[in-house]
């Protein structure tokens, strides 16, 4: 595995404003790039859902992808752990790299990619199993662990997901019996248990009440010390609260999603460069 180095410029590429944004940001903050999207387009048959996106994902930072519904945010996110592979009609152009390696290369094991790039979904989706078995599911996939090791792993993951104190006495109970917010934290614990490097979150709070949302947001701040996080949200306040970097997506007239701006979150929300970003973040539409 190559050590992650500072971002390399996508080769042979006309500098769109978004790319020059990211180059400027990278140089200015001396950041490490965990993942890199290089002219990524995602097509469903002939329909282009995401067009020509260039986006760096910085190590141990929270990157938010925002934009109106249907602009391809989730599709773009799912390109990062190859979940789009599950849709037979989906096709990807361009390159997505993880630590400098192309995750769509022919010899790459998709299972390995998904282990390194975990995912938390829009609706909490705990398995109909006990809380313990939900968290232990991932580690059990990767070899025979001793009971004691597994116990420790489950406890560590649940603690990391700020759920341990609430469930430590009922680990045998079904994960489905928890509240929505607890279920989502269980799903985060489940994702953490396989020790990924990147965690993708697809509108993780859209099915939760404000209190549960706050808990998840606090959790994200703690997690970024160890993980690189990418969150898709159409809640702009959330993006402003939790993220370090923000990518703004918009639908083109041909319905393809494109990235129109990328910047440090605080800049993006105070001094957006693009008029459309400004209109969106100030709530003039969307």
């Amino acid at each position: 595995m190559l050590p992650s180095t500072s971002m390399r410029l996508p080769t042979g590429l006309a500098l769109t404003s978004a790319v020059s944004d990211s180059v400027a940001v990278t140089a200015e903050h001396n950041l490490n790039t965990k993942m890199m999207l290089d002219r990524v387009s995602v097509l469903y048959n002939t329909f282009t859902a995401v067009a020509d996106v260039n986006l760096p994902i910085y190590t141990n930072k929270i990157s938010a992808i925002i934009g109106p519904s249907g602009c391809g945010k989730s599709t773009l996110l799912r390109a990062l752990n190859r979940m789009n592979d599950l849709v037979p009609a989906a096709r990807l152009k361009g390159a997505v790299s993880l630590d400098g390696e192309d995750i769509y290369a022919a010899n790459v094991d998709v299972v390995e990619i998904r282990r390194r790039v975990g995912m938390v979904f829009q609706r909490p989706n705990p398995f109909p199993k006990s809380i313990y078995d939900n968290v232990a599911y991932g580690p059990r996939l990767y070899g025979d662990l001793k009971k004691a090791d597994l116990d420790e792993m489950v406890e560590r993951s649940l603690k990391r997901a700020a759920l341990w104190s609430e469930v430590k006495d009922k680990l045998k109970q079904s994960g489905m019996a928890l509240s929505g917010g607890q279920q989502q934290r269980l799903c985060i614990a489940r994702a953490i248990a396989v020790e990924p490097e990147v965690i993708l979150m697809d509108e993780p709070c859209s099915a939760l009440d404000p209190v549960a949302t706050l808990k998840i947001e606090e959790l994200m701040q703690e997690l970024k010390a160890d993980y690189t996080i990418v969150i898709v949200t159409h809640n702009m306040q959330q993006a402003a609260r939790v993220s370090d970097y923000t990518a703004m997506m918009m639908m083109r007239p041909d319905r393809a999603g494109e990235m129109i701006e990328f910047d440090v979150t605080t800049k993006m929300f105070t001094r957006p460069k693009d008029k459309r970003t400004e209109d969106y973040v100030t709530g003039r539409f969307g």
Partner: protein
Amino acid sequence: MNTLQPRHLKRSTTHEQGRRVVNVVMLGLTGLMTLIALAPLAWILIEVLRRGSGALSVSFLTDTFKPTSLGGGGIWHALVGTGILIGLAAVFSVPVGILTAFYVSQHPNTTLGLAVRFGTDVLSGLPSIVVGLFVYTLVVRGQGYSALAGSLALAILMLPIVVRTTEEMLKLVPKSLREGSLALGAPEWKTSFSVLLPAAMTGVLTGLMLAVARVAGETAPLLFTALGSNNLSTALDKPIASLPLVLFKYAVDPSKVRNAQAWAIALIIVTLVLALNIGARLITLWRSKMLQ
């Protein structure tokens, strides 16, 4: 508007009356037809209960075959035989059926997927005697009559039911569970067995119960495969007794004792099938409550 309404109502009264009459007639007609449709079932149940309960006793269940001169004995051998036949048929059909259902539910639009779906439809409509003939020609001609041959015939009849119900139940498992598992780096087969199957388990059980209920009373395919026997046997390579076969034999027997015993067997089979159907309903009900 208010001034118009009474006149409007008044004017439509005759139409209204005509419509009401038609309504009542149609309601009566559909109700009557429903009763006619239900009548045979009720009649059969009443008749089976009336004629079958006479010969029913504990010793009838626990004794094996005896000649009528010795009181006629019981049907323990047939109960054991039916148990073995159905149990073995389930062992054959359930693994094949569940794996097939996984394939079809995950690759519904492939050539093989469509072929399997069409095939199970045809298979479930196939007359059971044809299945019997098939097994007779393939197995019995060479190996002789046996419990194994009988259960093979029943397994073929159970298979389409197991496949279709399991497939339907797998379809009901939320897509997000499959994605959740795959996103953790689980391979497809692991996802199927560790997440999808447990989530669909109650449904699969329901399908199995319905499949058992379907074949519990099958007689035609057993006539020339399991053959039937008056002895208590658990050997899989020998002919074996079964409830419907004994029922058939006793029903056409000239002895009044045997005729009464045939009705008692009918009562047992009907009770079994009814219990399985009610059980399946209860499981489905319980499941839908759990998912809410």
